[in-house]
């Protein structure tokens, strides 16, 4: 067994070295395609997370001026309560809004905020989402109201943009994964061709089929592995230096999950590439 492991390792690396240009091409193609797969996955997860956060929150928010008087506040509150298209409303004090801002905004933005600067707000759920705009037009010019926001529409548009981006990423990744498989297949075919004499002698003297095959399988496996290692670095870098708002930030377990997918797919295409090459070109 020890003899064999040494033999297989030696053969694998000498094959990789002999075809190093092809190996580099294969590894890079795997890396690029898997980086795209990983990014698409991260994007999907963070978009899902952000819109879930928004949707379980308020559909329409009536933001009061930080300087709004108690009378103006109660006025708006009564009108909201009497509006039939508003199902329910919740009042958020300045302190509550401040706490939420701390949670949602990056530190660079919150460090200059104080509780007194914060507007208080009414978070309302309209009976139907489309009514959000009616609420918006009704309250936008009320005294003491700073602004009415209805993020529903924006969320929907952003989700659509993300979905399109994701499809593009995955389509590109699919094409690249296919070419990566073909490249791996081809490097292994070249390795088999370079060793055809050895292989014929091995068969002649009774080397088992797996003894002959394993160096080529590990070769494809290692190419897939190297490619996914590079892709995992890229995905981790993207996760760490995400140029996006806090709502999109994913936790470490999402990153680990994504990297696991990248690793499995990489090893899989390496193994599939070599398996096809062995079936077609290694006659054992």
């Amino acid at each position, binding site marked *: *067994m020890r*003899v064999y492991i040494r033999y297989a390792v030696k053969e694998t690396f000498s094959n990789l070295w002999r075809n190093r240009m092809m190996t580099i091409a294969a590894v890079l193609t795997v890396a690029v395609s898997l980086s795209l797969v990983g990014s698409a996955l991260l994007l999907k997860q963070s978009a899902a997370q952000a819109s879930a956060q928004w949707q379980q929150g308020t559909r329409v928010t009536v933001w009061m001026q930080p300087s709004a008087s108690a009378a103006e506040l109660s006025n708006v509150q009564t009108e909201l309560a009497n509006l039939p298209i508003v199902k329910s409303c919740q009042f958020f004090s300045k302190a509550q809004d401040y706490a939420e801002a701390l949670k949602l905004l990056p530190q660079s933005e919150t460090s200059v905020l104080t509780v007194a600067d914060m507007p208080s707000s009414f978070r309302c759920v309209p009976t139907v989402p489309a009514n959000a705009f009616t609420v918006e037009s009704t309250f936008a010019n009320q005294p003491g109201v700073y602004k009415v926001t209805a993020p529903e529409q924006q969320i929907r548009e952003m989700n659509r943009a993300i979905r399109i981006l994701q499809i593009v990423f995955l389509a590109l990744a699919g094409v690249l994964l296919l070419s990566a498989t073909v490249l791996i297949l081809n490097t292994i075919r070249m390795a088999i061709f370079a060793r055809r*004499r050895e292989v014929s*002698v091995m*068969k002649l*003297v009774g*080397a*088992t089929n797996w*003894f002959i095959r394993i160096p080529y399988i590990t070769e494809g496996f290692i190419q897939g592995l190297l490619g996914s290692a590079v892709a995992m670095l890229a995905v981790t870098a993207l996760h760490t230096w995400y140029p996006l708002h806090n709502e999109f930030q994913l936790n470490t377990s999402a990153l680990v999950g994504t990297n696991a997918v990248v690793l499995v797919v990489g090893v899989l295409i390496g193994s599939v590439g070599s398996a096809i090459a062995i079936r077609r070109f290694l006659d054992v």
Partner: protein
Amino acid sequence: MIRFENVSKTYKNGTPALKDISLDIEKGEFVFLVGASGSGKTTFLRLLLREELPDQGRILEAGRDIGELPKWRVPYLRRNIGCVFQDFRLLPNKSVFENVAFALEVIGRPKSTVDSQVPQILELVGLTEKSKNLPGELSGGEQQRVAVARAFVNRPLILLADEPTGNLDPANSESIMALLERINRTGTTVVMATHDKALVDRMRRRVIELDKGEMIRDQVRGVYGIDEGVTLS
């Protein structure tokens, strides 16, 4: 050691290669397989190696029907059969020692076995001095001796030789034959396909002659030609 029971083989293009062959080869026998090109000699050897399966009949080696052998057992069958070819089939980028050692390494023999067996077998074939040379630096006869060493290093029960002297001059042919005889004397069954009439006539060993796939002669102490009035025995 080897038994053919009504073996027939026809290739896909319809050429019959062997027709209803039945024979027994005992352990330790030395058998010449003669016949014109296309008479079925190579098919005969390929069947023994289980590179082909017969269409009809059975082939038994060491008492076992090799047709029944599962595919994954075939390599283990081949470990008991050494092979020598007309074109030597050595690895050009490995030295004489490495060529012989390769046969042991790829069947998983430990280094200690390789280090003890290879020098021994190189001495048997008389190439101890050249063990570091590459095949390209050797004469044809020497290369064939390396091939014989590689075939025999694992001490197989059977040695198959397909025209081993076909590319050699008479003197080198002679030394290869002497080597095969020595191997035969250790109890190894040797089956040799050949065209070399003078060689067969001189050796006076069992001769099996094939013609268009049929066995037309099986003679205990035979000669190459059938012009001497011999019959199927």
